[in-house]
């Protein structure tokens, strides 16, 4: 069977961690993938320069949902600087999928990262370079 659907991915897809929304929140960002209509909303609560709570919601394929679920686990307790620096290589390592030659599915895997980065940069009042998301 396809490497794409290792047990870990399916597990997170079936039972996503930190699923839902946060109210109140400091950051809430929704991103969508125009190719397939997938949507992910990521909410953050920030305390003392750290991500205290995370939640995500939305609909999408197993890859985008599992990546979001794993990312939320990673983010809890993370310093904002570290979250800001978190990138594509990190998330690919986190989910353990070789998507370099699979540009379509790569977009799925990166959707939650994009929501996190766009939201966080806005919260920090900083400019996000579009290249950071490539």
């Amino acid at each position, binding site marked *: *069977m*396809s490497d*794409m659907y290792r047990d870990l991915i399916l597990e997170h897809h079936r039972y996503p961690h930190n699923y839902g929304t946060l109210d109140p929140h400091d950051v809430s960002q929704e991103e969508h993938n125009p190719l*397939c*209509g997938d949507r992910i909303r990521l909410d953050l609560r920030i305390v003392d320069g750290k991500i205290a709570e995370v939640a995500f919601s939305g*609909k*999408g394929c*197993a*890859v985008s949902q599992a990546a979001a679920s794993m990312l939320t686990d990673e983010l809890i307790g993370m310093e904002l600087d570290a979250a800001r620096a978190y990138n594509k290589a990190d998330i690919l390592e986190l989910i353990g999928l070789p998507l370099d030659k699979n540009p*379509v599915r790569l977009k799925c895997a990166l959707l939650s990262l994009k929501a996190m980065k766009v939201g966080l940069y806005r919260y920090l009042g900083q400019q996000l370079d579009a290249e950071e998301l490539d």
Partner: protein
Amino acid sequence: MYTPPFDIAAVRRDFPILQLPIEQPVAFLDSASSSQKPEAVIAAQAAFYRTTNANVHRGVYQLSEQATYEFERARSRVALFINAHSAREVIFTRNTTESINLVAHSWGGTNLRPGDVILISQMEHHSNIVPWQLLAQRTGAVLRAIPINGSGRLDLDTIDTLLQGVKLVAVTHVSNVLGTINPISFLAQKAHSVGALILVDGAQSVPHMPTDVQAMDIDFLAFSGHKMLAPTGVGVLWGRKALLDAMPPFLGGGSMIKTVTIEASTYADVPARFEAGTPMIGEAIALGHAIDYLTGIGMANIAAYEEILGQYLLDQLAEVPGVTVYGPPIGPERAAMASFTVDCAHPHDVAQVLDSEGVAVRAGHHCTQPLHVALDVPSTARASCYLYNTTDDIDRLVVGLRKVTKLFA
């Protein structure tokens, strides 16, 4: 036992890609996106570059004469294939999209006034929506869409009301998602009854069934070579000669002029007027050979075989629990494709698992976002057939889908 009207095994041997890889050849069910190419077409294009390559309509030397002859022969093949009055009505473009944009710019730019209506439908491909939106923004014309009904067909109950103020009807002959075959002759007659013209998007019809622009009584037809066994990079706009004659150029440049001074130019007659610059010569010639291949088998035979395949496809999908198929039920006026969702899995995941089983289908909105809004699903998976597919391919799809439901249930 059903006997196809042509030798499918022989056809399959004509397509090099269907032999690869040797252990498990691909079950290619994405021809609606782009078809595979037979050896005859690949060889014809290569032969052009090996033996005939030169620019057309320019040189007086032998090679250029030969290239021009073959390029124009391809145009004649296209004209015959769609029963055009004359090869002069056939314009080579890059694809369906460019053909539609040509009409929007050239005909639309000169003939539409503020408030004029362009009537499209809810099931159009983006390439038959966006050019009209751009035109509407430029001219003040208004875009209106024929809705679809619950069985995935155009809702024509209120067509007379919808036609009020319409100057152009632009509809697809076959939906690239639902597989619906639309009643083009009826729509042409309705359009003409209010003095409007009709453009038909033939991207999904011309490759799969006999096409007769005179019998349908339409005004413009757009289609793509790459969906009908030809290379990418060549498409066709057919238009009635009198309409084309009255239309201003689309792109300016070489080949499309009679005389040029620094102040002004006069333009060539059609079709040259609409073919600025060096065209896709090898690709157009290869399209001519693709048409030879298709007519060798017979478009009526291809349509008859695909009807059987399409029914088999729908029958088989109906047997898989959790699969929902969109579009008209099994029956006539339904092309050999099925867009579907699987209860437990996203279309991307469906396509990915199928891929690991060697089954190629497409997942996404298939460039029809307004249609997917009407269907109330963000995306679907789509299996589409062509002359080289067999019930075997469909059986492999079904086996793959059962794996999907097992994996994600």
